[in-house]
């Protein structure tokens, strides 16, 4: 049980895919202009990563090593299509805003990395825990990034006005430079909290 918890929590802080491993950065930088976008992106990734980890783990004994990557991609693409179509059905506006970034989950490094590095070597329960933890870490990072950017760049949080009317939003924060600057400070902030600096 403790091992399961460690696997799960690993993705949230220690190996947070966005703020620690810094992989799959396309979506975190592009969709975090608003908290609601980041949230739905996170939900899609939670679904795809957990489901693909589960299936890859189940298939790990029957997949020949030589063609494992194409098979992983087919598995991931299937779940991404499911997520894409479902999101389009239940949240058409959000789906239109996220645009190409939902289908792009197929090529998101995090998903393939977890399939290759974890799910293809571990049993079903562990793989699901790993997928959930990693995807939650991803979602949390997106929410933090999007909260800062939406607050400063638009003066709102989840679309609600939370700052006084005299606040003048800094448009640059919801433009690409704002994403990079915020991400840089989040990365260094996490290093500061966990006591890992670049000195060693």
């Amino acid at each position, binding site marked *: 049980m403790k091992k399961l918890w460690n696997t799960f929590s690993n993705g949230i802080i220690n190996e947070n895919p966005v703020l620690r491993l810094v992989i799959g950065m396309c979506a975190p930088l592009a969709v975090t202009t608003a908290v609601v976008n980041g949230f739905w992106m996170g939900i899609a990734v939670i679904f795809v990563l957990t489901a693909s980890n589960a299936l890859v783990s189940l298939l790990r004994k029957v997949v020949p090593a030589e063609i494992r990557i194409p098979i992983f991609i087919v598995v991931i693409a299937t779940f991404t299509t499911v997520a894409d179509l479902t999101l389009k059905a239940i949240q058409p506006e959000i789906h239109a805003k996220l645009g190409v970034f939902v289908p792009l989950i197929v090529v998101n490094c995090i998903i393939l990395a977890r399939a290759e590095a974890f799910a293809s070597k571990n049993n079903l329960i562990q793989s699901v825990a790993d997928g959930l933890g990693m995807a939650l870490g991803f979602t949390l990072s997106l929410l933090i990034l999007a909260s800062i950017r939406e607050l400063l760049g638009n003066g709102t949080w989840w679309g609600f006005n939370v700052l006084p009317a005299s606040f*003048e939003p*800094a*448009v*640059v*924060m919801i*433009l690409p*430079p704002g994403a990079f*600057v915020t991400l*840089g400070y989040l990365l260094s902030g996490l290093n500061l909290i966990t006591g890992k600096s670049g000195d060693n």
Partner: protein
Amino acid sequence: MANKDILSGEGKLLVSSSPHIRAQETVDWLMWQVVIALLPAVIVSIYFFGFRSFYLILLGTLAAVITEAAIEKAMGKDITIKDGSAVVTGLLLAFNLPATAPWWLVIIGSVFAIAVVKQTFGGLGYNFINPALTARAFLLAAWPQYVAGNFPLPLDTVTGATPLAVLKGTAAGTLPTYGDLFWGNVGGVLGETSAVALLAGGLYLIYLEVIDWRTPLSFICTVAAFTWVFGGSGGLFTGDPLFHVLAGGLILGAFFMATDYVTSPVTPLGRVVFGVGCGLITVLIRLWGDYPEGVSYSILLMNLLVPFIERWTAPRVYGMQPMQG
């Protein structure tokens, strides 16, 4: 002289490690000379744009110095506000904003310049791009309505367009005379309008060898040459180079920002390359870009190329063969 004491050592043989001969110039002295050289432009700016100009310049400078001190204190470093570099950054940032800028804009710009661009990368000497210009670019992207497009005309309460915007046809207005451009009686950001005040400060710095003449000269000559060739509406060689040199932020940028020690090349040839590159990008933006003025972006872009320029123009070490392949 301290060197003499060490060398003579009052009859004793003193052993010390190199360097044995030190220049008299210190970072503090150099930076305060830059501040002195900027003073004429400050005075002209206050004359043309009124008390508000003084207020904004003071605010920007104070915010830069306080931010620098606060961050260095928080990080347990030596507090280096005495060296004047934060003062220069604050001054130059305020110089890059119009007199109509709200007070908080100047403060955010100064804090961004010092905290994000300078101290995040390690403080004086480690920032890879010019802090004041980066802060200006940040403010322009964040609050374009306050940074561009709303310039007060001197000695007047109405707002108008900058000469370059008029020339480009993106704003209505009449083109100023060369005299107005020279003395600074035109619309624009606080520090850029008066060519004579900036030239006085720039030549003072060149005379003291605080800055190198190569970068400003190559920068301004490149802009003049290319605007003369391509700037006219009636075909090649019909442009107005004098107008392009005097209008906009070219003189301010060429003398005070393109020569920033930290973000410009150290080799003599590299400085010429840097100036020519700045000039080319400025002309590209002024003649064919969306913005009427391109000095600040040209310097920022060339800042990024400095490591490559330095590697390319590094002098051959005596006795060494140039590297093959």
